[in-house]
C-alpha cells in the first residue's frame, strides 16, 4: 500500500521534502520485502569479537547470554560509500505537462536518494546544482544534519538560465577527492556526443557515473490541437509547428536521440536511466541500489 506513495502526482501534494523522501523510501523498502533479489543493509555478514571502543549497540546479547562472551554482529551493508548528485537547475527543467514538472520530480528523486543513502546506508552524500554555472555545492559528508543541508539545497535550487555541462563538470572535478558514485540528474537537451564528452572525465577517477534522464511525457510525445507556436523555455526562441510534424518526425528524432544517448553512455562505462515524470520513483532507487551493490 505504501507503494502508491511512489507516484509523483501524490508526492506533489506533500510540501515537506524530507517527508517526501521518507515516504518514497519507506514505500520502496516495503516493496522490496517481496523481492528476493534485493537484500542489502540488514543482511547478516559475520560475528566479530568485541574490542574496546566498539559501539555497545551492536553487541549480540543473545550470544553473550549463551557463551558469556561479547560478540559484535556485522552486516553486509555497513560498508560506507560516497554519493554526489549533480542536479540540472536550468529553465527547461521547469516544463511539466501535469501536476509534477521535471524539477519537482528531480527534487523528489534526489531527496529520496539522499534519505536512502544517509539513513539506510550511512553513506556520505553531497549535492551540486548547476545550470550554465555552478549554483550550489554541498560537500559529501556523514556529519549530523547533512540530510537537512542537502534537502535545503534542493529547496533552494530554482530553475533558471540554460544548461551547460562544461563549466560545472570542470569545477566538480576539482573538488572530487574520493571515489564514489556520481548521479547526474538532467533532461540532457544537448547532443549525446557533447554530453558524454563533458561527463566522461568523471569516470576516469574511478567514480561510478549514472545519468538520470528526466523527461516529461510531452517531451517525447507532444500534444497539439492545431498549428502552434512553440517557445523554447531556455532561449525563448519561437517556432510555428504543425501537429503532423509533432506526431511523426519529432518522435522519430527524439527516439533516435534517446537511443544514441543510451548507447554512448553505456559505451563510456556509465549507467543510464530514463525517468518519465509520470512514472513512480522506484526505478531510480533500484538503479541506485544495484549500482551500490556492485561496488561492494
Amino acid at each position, binding site marked *: 500500500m505504501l507503494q502508491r506513495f511512489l507516484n509523483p502526482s501524490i508526492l506533489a501534494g506533500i510540501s515537506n521534502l524530507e517527508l517526501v523522501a521518507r515516504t518514497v523510501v519507506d514505500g520502496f523498502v516495503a516493496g522490496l520485502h517481496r523481492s528476493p533479489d534485493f537484500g542489502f543493509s540488514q543482511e547478516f555478514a559475520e560475528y566479530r569479537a568485541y574490542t574496546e571502543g566498539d559501539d555497545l549497540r551492536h553487541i549480540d546479547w543473545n550470544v553473550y547470554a549463551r557463551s558469556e562472551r561479547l560478540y559484535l554482529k556485522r552486516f553486509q551493508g555497513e560498508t560506507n560509500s560516497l554519493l554526489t548528485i549533480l542536479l540540472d537547475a536550468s529553465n527547461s527543467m521547469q516544463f511539466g505537462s501535469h501536476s509534477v514538472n521535471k524539477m519537482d520530480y528531480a527534487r523528489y528523486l534526489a531527496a529520496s536518494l539522499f534519505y536512502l543513502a544517509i539513513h539506510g546506508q550511512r553513506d556520505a552524500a553531497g549535492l551540486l546544482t548547476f545550470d550554465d554555472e555552478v549554483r550550489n555545492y554541498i560537500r559529501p559528508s556523514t556529519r549530523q544534519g547533512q540530510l537537512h543541508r542537502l534537502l535545503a539545497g534542493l529547496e533552494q535550487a530554482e530553475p533558471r538560465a540554460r544548461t551547460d555541462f562544461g563549466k560545472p563538470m570542470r569545477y566538480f572535478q576539482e573538488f572530487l577527492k574520493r571515489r564514489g558514485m556520481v548521479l547526474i540528474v538532467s533532461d540532457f537537451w544537448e547532443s549525446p556526443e557533447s554530453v558524454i564528452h563533458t561527463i566522461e572525465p568523471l569516470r576516469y577517477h574511478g567514480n561510478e557515473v549514472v545519468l538520470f534522464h528526466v523527461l516529461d511525457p510531452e517531451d517525447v510525445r507532444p500534444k497539439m490541437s492545431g498549428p502552434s*507556436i512553440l517557445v523554447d523555455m531556455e532561449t525563448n*526562441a519561437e517556432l*510555428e509547428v504543425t501537429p503532423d510534424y509533432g506526431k511523426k518526425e519529432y518522435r522519430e528524432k527524439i527516439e533516435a536521440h534517446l537511443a544514441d544517448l543510451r548507447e554512448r553512455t553505456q559505451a563510456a562505462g556509465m549507467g543510464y536511466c530514463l525517468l518519465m515524470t509520470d512514472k513512480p520513483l522506484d526505478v531510480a532507487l533500484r538503479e541506485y541500489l544495484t549500482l551500490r551493490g556492485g561496488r561492494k
Partner: protein
Amino acid sequence: MGFLAPWFLAGLAGLALPLYLHLLKRQTRTPKKVSSLMFYESRTQSSTRHRRLRYFLLLSLRLLLLLLLILAFANPFVNRDAATLASNRLVLLVVDNSFSMRAGTRLADAKAAAMVALGNKGAARAQVASFGSQLRLMTQPIEDQAALRAAVQAIQPGDGHGNFGELARAVRGIAEAMHTPIELHLFSDMQRSDLAATFADMVLPDNVRLVEHAVVTKAEPNWTVESVDAPGQVWGKDVKPVHVQAVIAGYGTPAAQRTASLIVSGKTTATKKVMVPANGRATVDFPSLEVPYGFSRCEVQIDAADNFPADDLRRFAVERSDPQKVLLIHNYGDTRSPFYVGAALSAAAQSAFIVESIIGNEAADRKPSNYAFIILSDLNSVPSLLENSLTEYVRQGGSVLIAVGTSTGARSQIPIFGAHIVDTRDYNRVPDRYMAVGSSDSSYPAVAKADGWAGVKFFYALNVDPGTGPGAARVIVRLGDQTPLLLEKRIGEGRVVLLTSGLDNLTNDFPLHPAFVPFIEQTARYLAGSERQGGARPVDAFLELRNARERGQGVEVTDPEGKRPLTLGEAASAQSFQLTEAGYYQLRLANGRQNVIAVNPDPRESNLDVIPNDVLALWQGKGADTPRNASAQGPATVPHKVPESLWWYIMLLVLASGVAESVVASRYLGTQREEP
C-alpha cells in the same frame, strides 16, 4: 413564395456572428512553451493552408445552420393549387337531418347523394356529420370508405330545427383547428327558415368551399298544426269548461277543408272541420276539454293530405289537480282586501287557488307550510309568534306578499321584509291628490301582463329604503316621485314581495282596474312556484330540472322512447336538460313533483319553402350569376391557391446541418488523441 412572419428575417444580421468569431479565431494563437526546440522544425505555410480549408467548411455549415433557423422562424410558404393538395384537403359531408327532412324521401335522397359524393372524393380525407339544430360529427377525418359509408347510413331523422348560422359557426371552429382546405358538402332541403338571422352569421372562412346539394328545388305544399293553446293545468272537480284552441296553417297550399281532431290519451274526443284559406291559417276551437285527475297526453291532429305527415299533429299535456290554498292575514275590520284578492284569483287563475282569510290574531296557530303562499294585508301589528314562524317559513323557501296599508305607517320597519320605513306619502295633500306609476320593470311577470299599471291612482304609500349591497331589495315599480311601490327581496331560500300601498280601494284604486287581476294572478303563480313547466315545449328547449336549494336531490327523466337519457351523475347534479326529441317526456323533479312535458318540433320546420338561388350563390361566395350546383357531382376541383408552409422541411434541414456541424467541429476542434 412568401413569409408568414417576415419580421424574423431581421435575424439575418446574426450571420455576422460566426463570421466575426471565425475571423477573430484565425488571428489568435496562444504560444506554447516547450523544454527545447532542439528537434522541432518550422511548418508554417502548410499548417495555415490546412486550417483555412477546414475552417471554411465549418464556417459554411454554421452559416447555413443560422440561415435555416432564421428562415424557420420567418415561416416561408408557397402558394399551391388546392387541386394539387388533394391529400391535404378535407371533404366534410354534412347531411341535414332536421325535422323537415322527414318530409317525403328527403333524408334518404340526401344520404344517397352523400354516398355518391363519397365515391367521387378520390384520395382526400373525409368526415361525415349530421346537422339538425347543431352539427354532430359522426367520424374523424379518415379515408376509409367503408367507415364513412356506414356513418352516412347511420344518420337518423331528427326533430330539431336547422340553422345554417349554427352550421357555419361549427365549420369555422373546424377550419381553425384543421388549417387545411375544407370542402363542405351540404346535403339538405335548403329550407328558407334555416337561414340565420343575419347573413354575417353564415359566413364561412376562406379555406372552406361550400358545395350544396339540394334534395328539393322548389317549395312543397304543406298543412300543419301550427300551435295549440291549452291550459297546462286545470284544478278541482267542477270547473269552468276548458277551451283548446288550435291554429291550422297551410304553406303554399290551396284553400281546402281540413279535419282537426282532439285526442286525449289516444282517444279522439272531438272532431271539427275547418276551412283553411290558401296559404293561410285557420283557428279551431274545442270548447270543452275533459281530462281526468293526473296527467293527460293530448294532441290536436289534422288529416294527412300532404307529403309531410309528421307535422300534422301537435302535442300538449294537461294536469288536473286540486286547487292550492292561500292564507290572507288581514287587519280586523279590513274586509275589502280578502274580497278583491279572492275575486281576482277566482277570475283569472282558473280556480287554481282558494283564498283563506283570517285576522292577525287568529293566525298564530296556523302552519304556514300548509299554504302555497301567505298574504299579509295592512297589519298594524304582527304577533311575534307569527312573525317568527313566517320568517322561518320564508327562510326555508316559502313566499309572502306584504301589502302595507295605513296601519303599518306607525312602524319603523316592515316586518319579515326588514326594510326601514323612511316616511309615509299621503298624496291627498298634493295638487292632483294622487300619484301614478313612474317607472316599472317590464321583465317582472306580475307587471308585464298588467300593462305597467297605467292609469292606477295611488293615494297613499310608504317610502321604504330598499337598502344597498347584496341584501338589498329589488325595486320593480316606482311611483312618479320615485317612491318604491313594488319590491322583491330574497330571504334565505324564499322570497317576499312588498307592495308599499294597500290591496283595498282606500289607499289606491288599483283593485278597480283591470290590471289588478293579472297582477294578483301572476304574483300568486310566482310566489306559489306553480309556474308549471308548461304543457308543451319546442324541440331543443332546455328544461330546468332543479333550483339552487334542490342540489344533490335526484331527478328522473324518461324520454319519448321510454329511455332514461340522464346518467346517474347527471340525474344528481344537472341543472337543466335539453329536449331533443318530439314526444312526451315524463319527469320526476327534485321537489318530488311529477310532470309530463309535450315536446313539439319547431313550427318553422313545417314551412318547406326553399332558399332562393341568389341567396345560395351569395352564401357560396360566387355572386348572383352562378347557377346553383344542385347535382351530386362529387367534390369539384375548382383551382384556388392555398398557402403551404415549408416550416417542417426547413426544420429537417436544420437538423441535418446541425449534425454535420457537430461532426465537422468535433473532428477539427477536438483535442487530438495520442496514437498508441
